[in-house]
């Protein structure tokens, strides 16, 4: 029954719309404010400082392109895989920040001052999105896309 619901083409379309929408929205501020996003990454204290700018330059565009492609296709599965990998990185980073008791902006949507603080809420959101990615990868995104993937 569950498999039938999850593999339904409308369920898959809804998951793609949500994931794509979230990732497109998440990329906007980061593209607009690369320096602030770089600082958000730095605040996690997980990456060598020299690599932070490159991540801040590239990651928002990966989010935007994957977000668009997972909605319209082509490359629905490829975008889902990439979104899944990014979510995995976010889950590890947020878990680590929570474990270390860091009071930092999560850098998820609005970056810099006024951004959301890392916490269980952000972690749960990312885990739920990761589950959505698994569903798309498992059942495909053939319907409602420009080209079959």
């Amino acid at each position, binding site marked *: 029954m569950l498999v039938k619901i999850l593999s339904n083409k409308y369920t898959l379309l809804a998951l793609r719309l949500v994931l794509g929408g979230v990732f497109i929205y998440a990329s906007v501020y980061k*593209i607009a404010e*690369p*320096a602030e996003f*770089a*600082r958000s990454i*730095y*605040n*996690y*204290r997980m990456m060598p*400082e*020299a*690599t*932070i*700018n*490159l991540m*801040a*330059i*590239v*990651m*928002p*565009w*990966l989010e935007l*392109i*994957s977000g668009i*492609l997972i909605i319209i296709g*082509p*490359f629905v*599965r*490829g*975008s*889902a*895989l*990439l979104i899944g*990998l990014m979510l995995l990185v976010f889950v590890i980073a947020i878990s680590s920040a929570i474990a270390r008791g*860091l*009071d*930092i*902006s999560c850098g998820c949507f609005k970056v810099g*001052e006024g951004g959301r*603080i890392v916490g269980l809420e952000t972690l749960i959101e990312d885990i739920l999105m990761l589950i959505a990615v698994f569903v798309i*990868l498992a059942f495909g995104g053939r319907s409602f896309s420009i080209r079959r*993937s």
Partner: protein
Amino acid sequence: MKRLFAGTLKEAVIILVLGVAVGLAVNFVRKDGLGIIAEADEFRVRTNAEFVTTEDAWRLFEEGKAFLIDARDPASFRRERIEGALNASPTQAGVDSLAWIAPANPYVIVYASEASQRQAGVLADKLLDAGFKKVRVLLDGIEGWKKAGHPVEGASG
């Protein structure tokens, strides 16, 4: 199955290459583009205020010569703060809310957390601009204060 996985991987690599190319190209043409490799001190706190060590801050606090100002967001402040500290955001309104301290002219020690030290730097600079004289930034933030065993208060404590 193997073909499907290889196809998915290939798609992901194409998107990855596209993302890297677009990201680098846009960064190259935009005025506020970042250096590809961050400089060693790029993320350090920049402030015109002097820094103060945890022990010196504690001594000034004990002698009643220092006000401690928390530059973090109000939620973090409510959760845990240095005992007796006030909360002020690094904005003009935040600085204005502290104007009453100035006449007494004690040391004003601004702190944040290790990860949000920049906010402390921004608030300290605004306080200097507003005419505060003895503004200091707590070097190791609230974490250093706690590590030294000095008192904190708040909802989590």
